[in-house]
């Protein structure tokens, strides 16, 4: 049994504009001690999905299950959830400055976390807080527990967050874009800290990111999300070298090649669909250069591809490069035809 088994998770928000379907039928497993990366452009539902699992989403309609260590967290009693949060599921977030309370010392904040779950004295908890800060590589930890978050640099703050999230040796760490707000040089250090803690404590990690570089370094398994749903799911190597879904291909094309400074990126043209009125068919079809008739009418299921049980893709395309090229050529030709027919030719040199 996997540590976390998420099945058919749906999360919807009622808003003034309509129902926002932020997560649509999400399923994945996280094995003990392994790292699952969830990637996707901003707005694809990564944060909502993971926060819902931890019971942090408020005012949403939620269905599906998320069995953590055998207990379904969706719709669990608030007290049950409270005991799981922090103690068994630690969380870190994108912006460590806004995620730490500005009015309390970092030591106080870590002590609070420990004492919410363990019956220990303040002195013992404080000792432990200092220990944790030194484990994550903060120098002079004994003194620094008395400092406030604004007295730390961005990278050090994220280390504080990691120390706090790991304080009770949780079985799962949810890291929501932990390096996005940090300088490039600091990003690698923070990832190193996470990885060494994972080795030391055997923690499983859900790593949310839109940076495939981070995925390449950290992940065992990858889930690619788009418009609230899984587009492709595969082990890391498979995803990088034998990916199937055009959205994954697009994400990889927008990744700067290793060490290649000045390398031009190819972002995916267009933007994600509105989650309020999703069209029938594949949500990625409007941006997909290989799309054909069927893509527009029926949403593809997340099915096994390449005869690999670990590899699933929600795409109608066959895995045949020639077929894709044909589709692409046909789509390009159609677009060109449509483009020239509704544009009236203007004589050159006649300006307004």
């Amino acid at each position, binding site marked *: 049994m996997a540590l976390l088994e998420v099945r058919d998770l749906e999360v919807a928000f009622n808003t003034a504009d309509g129902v926002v379907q932020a997560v649509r039928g999400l399923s994945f497993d996280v094995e003990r001690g392994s790292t699952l990366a969830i990637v996707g452009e901003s707005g694809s539902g990564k944060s909502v999905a993971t926060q819902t699992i931890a019971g942090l989403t408020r005012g949403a309609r939620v269905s599906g299950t998320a069995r953590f260590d055998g207990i379904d967290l969706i719709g669990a009693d608030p007290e049950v959830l409270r005991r799981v949060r922090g103690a068994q599921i630690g969380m870190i977030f994108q912006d460590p400055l806004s995620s730490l309370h*500005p009015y309390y010392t970092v030591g106080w904040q870590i002590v609070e976390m420990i004492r919410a779950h363990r019956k220990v004295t303040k002195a013992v908890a404080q000792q432990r807080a200092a220990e944790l800060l030194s484990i994550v590589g903060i120098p002079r930890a004994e003194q620094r527990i008395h400092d406030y978050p604004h007295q730390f640099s961005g990278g050090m703050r994220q280390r504080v967050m990691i120390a706090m999230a790991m304080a009770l040796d949780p079985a799962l760490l949810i890291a929501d874009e932990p390096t996005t707000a940090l300088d490039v040089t600091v990003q690698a250090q923070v990832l190193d800290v996470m990885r060494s803690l994972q080795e030391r404590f055997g923690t499983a990690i859900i790593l949310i990111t839109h940076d495939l570089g981070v995925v390449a370094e950290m992940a065992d398994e990858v889930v690619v999300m788009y418009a609230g749903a899984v587009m492709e799911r595969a082990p890391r190597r498979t995803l990088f070298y034998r990916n199937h879904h055009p959205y994954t291909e697009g994400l990889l094309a927008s990744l700067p090649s290793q060490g290649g400074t000045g390398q031009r990126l190819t972002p995916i043209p267009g933007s994600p669909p509105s989650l309020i009125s999703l069209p029938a068919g594949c949500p990625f079809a409007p941006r997909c250069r290989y799309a054909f008739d069927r893509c527009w009418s029926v949403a593809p299921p997340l099915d096994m591809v390449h005869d690999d049980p670990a590899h699933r893709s929600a795409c109608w395309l066959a895995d045949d490069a020639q077929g894709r090229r044909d589709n692409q050529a046909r789509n390009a030709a159609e677009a060109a035809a449509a483009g020239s027919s509704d544009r009236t030719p203007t004589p050159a040199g006649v300006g307004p």
Partner: protein
Amino acid sequence: MVRFLIRRVALGFLVLWLITVAVFGLFFVAPNNVARTLAGRQATPETVAAISHRLGLDQPLWKQYLDFVGNALHGDLGYDYYHQVPVTTILGSALPITLSLVFGAAFLWLGLGVFNGVISATHPRSFTDRSLTALSLFFYSTPTFLLGILLLYVLYFRLTLAGHTAFPAGGYAPFGGGLGPWAQHLVLPWFTLALVSAATYTRLTRASMLDVLGEDYVRTARSKGIGERRVVLRHGLRAALTPIVTQFGIDVGSLLGGVVVTETVFSLPGLGKTAIDAINQQDLPVIIGIVLFAAAAVVVANILVDLAYAVLDPRVRLH
């Protein structure tokens, strides 16, 4: 921090000085016939002149002003025109009344406002929230004098007619005469003053809490598995307090100069009522004394608010 304080105190003195100039100037622009009033209807011009001389009113304005400032710096605010009582004595007997009124009411409105505001913010758009909002708006738009008279009518007049005298019609019982009578005389004025302000504090707390509860660090607090109560109070309210404290300091500071309407409705001889009497009699030294005290209260309150920022927010303190 210390340099900042020195600057603020110096600025405070500058404000007070400007206020003395303004009050002096304004008062002497209007024709002044204190001496004539005091001398009585049948007085000869000589008597009037003598009185003018005794009060120092025959001196040139700049001389009167310099004398005043010189004395004020020694803590002497002069004598009132009519009974030759030191102004400081007059202030000294009115001040405890205003202090009792303002601090009692402030305690009430802060408690009521913050409590209701937190309830509203933690149950946004619920029935409770809407009811509290409606109630706030009701008290907010009720003029103080009307609320005071209403309370008097129901809780003094009707109750006394029904044979239960729970509250006096007005007046003040000094603190020294026992806590019971003191509070009994002040309960209605306290509520009159507090209900109007509590509305403001309810709205302010609600808005501030709603902001803070959406902050990332509140999400972090929840992710740590601490109880919801603690999340709301230790993490939410603690951070939401800053604008509330600011408003509180400014409100208390400006009320200390006298709560004219409430003091008048309940016949409390505090600073507000004393000021009104002094203005009616053109009793310049008393007016200046009260205006100066009121201004000083506002200045001090503002400095205290700035200090409170530093106490509340380490980002300010450690800068």
